[in-house]
């Protein structure tokens, strides 16, 4: 990849908290999410030795696959200081698009794995609508993405009249059901998504610009960062990842319907924040968010393993999330907390 030309002061963001290459400036607090993750694993393992089994590790990675793909997009949006609340809408609509394009019980089509590019593209287009409405009509990203998410869910409902499209294509379902080198394919797809996001973050101008905008938009603008274009592109990127997650959700559950993504938004935002990315922008990285997803998923898994009573679980979950965020956030870097 061609080394992008970047204004000198933007070339090495100091706020990338998991960048280990700068040894002299290791920020121990930046490692807090990893610490929380290991602590959590140790506690659960004491109560339930099965937790450390290989098969459970695979199950946790498998359950993490879709959230990981989702946080790849959400992290960039949040790093920029914006928010994307359209996750559930885009995932549901793209799951419906995917389920409708492969061999199914409702529509006559049989695209097989070729349905995935269409789902990803659909997600990217919706992300583009999010971004352009936000930037050019100057509507806060909170409202735009909330609204567009609702529109997506509305389309998914109206298109199917409230009924699911069931997938009968076993070949397509191999996207999540099949295994390669012993691991479910969904994990490989998520790993590829992380690789792409890492390249965008570390090796492209877009990635640098995102940090610049999130840290201080005015300075970034004065340094010649194309704010508008960057913002739109980041929302497109988030849409592409959501679209991929939609295809994965359809493959995992063997259907597409309007409610298939319910609950995903909460997991996504929580994972990003628990991973140590600040909602105020500029601080964090995609790797942080991967750790954040693992914390959230291990927590869910561990509570069932430890036999925590259901009515206590939500309380414990809420409490631990606040603890994790408290440990992970570097308050010295946050001048303002909203």
């Amino acid at each position, binding site marked *: 990849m061609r080394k992008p030309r970047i204004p000198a002061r933007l070339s090495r963001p100091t706020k990338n908290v998991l960048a280990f290459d700068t040894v002299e400036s290791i920020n121990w607090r930046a490692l807090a999410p990893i610490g929380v993750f290991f602590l959590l694993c140790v506690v659960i393992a004491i109560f339930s030795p*099965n937790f450390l089994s290989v*098969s459970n590790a695979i199950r946790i990675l498998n359950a993490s696959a879709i959230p990981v793909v989702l946080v790849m997009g959400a992290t960039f949006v949040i790093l920029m200081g914006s928010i994307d609340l359209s996750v559930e809408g885009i995932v549901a609509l793209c799951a419906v698009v995917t389920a409708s394009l492969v061999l199914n019980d409702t529509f006559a089509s049989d695209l097989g794995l070729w349905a995935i590019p269409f789902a990803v593209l659909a997600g990217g287009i919706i992300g583009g609508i999010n971004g352009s409405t936000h930037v050019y009509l100057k509507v806060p990203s909170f409202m735009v993405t909330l609204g567009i998410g*609702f529109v997506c*869910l509305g*389309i998914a409902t*109206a298109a199917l009249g*409230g009924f*699911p499209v*069931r997938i009968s294509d076993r070949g397509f379902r191999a996207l999540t059901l099949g295994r390669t080198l012993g691991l479910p394919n969904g994990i490989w797809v998520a790993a590829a998504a992380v690789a792409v996001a890492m390249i965008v973050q570390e090796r492209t101008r877009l990635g640098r610009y995102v940090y610049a905008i999130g840290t201080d938009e005015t300075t970034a603008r004065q340094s010649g960062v194309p704010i508008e274009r960057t913002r739109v592109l980041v929302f497109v990127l988030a849409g592409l990842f959501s679209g991929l997650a939609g295809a994965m959700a359809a493959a995992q559950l063997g259907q597409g319907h309007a*409610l298939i993504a319910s609950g995903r938004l909460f997991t996504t935002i929580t994972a990003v924040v628990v991973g140590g990315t600040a909602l105020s922008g500029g601080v964090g990285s995609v790797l942080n968010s991967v750790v954040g997803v693992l914390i959230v998923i291990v927590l869910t898994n561990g509570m069932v393993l430890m036999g925590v009573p259901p009515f206590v679980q939500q309380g414990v979950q809420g409490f631990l999330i606040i603890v994790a965020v408290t440990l992970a956030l570097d308050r010295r870097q946050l001048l303002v907390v909203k």
Partner: protein
Amino acid sequence: MGKIANNSIMLAAAATLSSGIYTASFAEDMTLAISMRSLSNPYHATFARGGEAFAESVGLPFEVLVTEGNSEKGLADIRALISRTNGNVCINVDPNDSPDAATIVDEAKEAGAYVVTQWNKPDDLHPWDHDPNYVAHMSFSGVGTSKEITNALIDAMGGEGGIVAIGGILSNVPAIERKLGMEMAVAETGGKVEILDFQPADWNETKAFEIMQAWLTRYGDDIKGVWAANDSMGIGALEALRQEGKDGLVPVVGIDGTEAALAAVEAGEMAGTVAWDPMWTGGMGLSLCHAAASGAIDIAAEPAEHREFYGTGIVVTSANIAEFRSRDASFDFNDYWAKSTGQIQYQ
């Protein structure tokens, strides 16, 4: 956020469904309406179709109201409808929450409108105390049918072993009833069947998927059966089993009779489900309401079992799925209680 999201769908969907029909209404015509949580799940979508089918059969204007899971909105919409029609309206309503039913009945009585309620109402609110405007309350026996489907699961397990159970939202009446029915059926085995764990997954597929994965780690092969309080969660659990190549090896049961679950029963992946009849509750609820409002029947003179009654929940297993698929699902809108299975019992 999920809740808000669900709500908004309804808005869009309800608008598309009701607008075309509403413009055709005339002032002197009685309006028929259905109110429920959402159009984005198959149960309620079919419920609305049932109401629409009856409205078409009598040629009256028809409206769909959705609560978006919000009691205030549900009540405000019903209030607006009653005042717009001057009380000349029949409403078949699935109240968002039990207490809402009392308010709806009061409003209807005051304006002379007619109401049939579904599923949710306070135990001490009875149609016969609000003659003639509160026509009837229809429900399905959550405890009884849950007990039946649990027995089907126990049969599929060979009569013994451990089961894991996935519940709905802990405070929902159907979730409580279905759990109770399951526990009663398990208790009747005298210890041969054991509930390894119970976890609520809030009616959500993905949550059920994750819980099932954790159970596979915790109990592994000790799991001889999976009970789910609805089909969505049953499918979520089934997909978690499929991921490990255990689909069809561990019997799973659900409740609701969704197409996905029925297909899974046909494929031998699920041991059974309970099929409700939302087409019937949607259509017959309005038909009964209309009959009372138009004077075709004297509802105040009808016995209690015609005012608070259960519909038919059919337990579908591999043994009767073919028969169930080929059954005659049509019904006569004028035969009001043909599918009733008795007066509602309170626990």
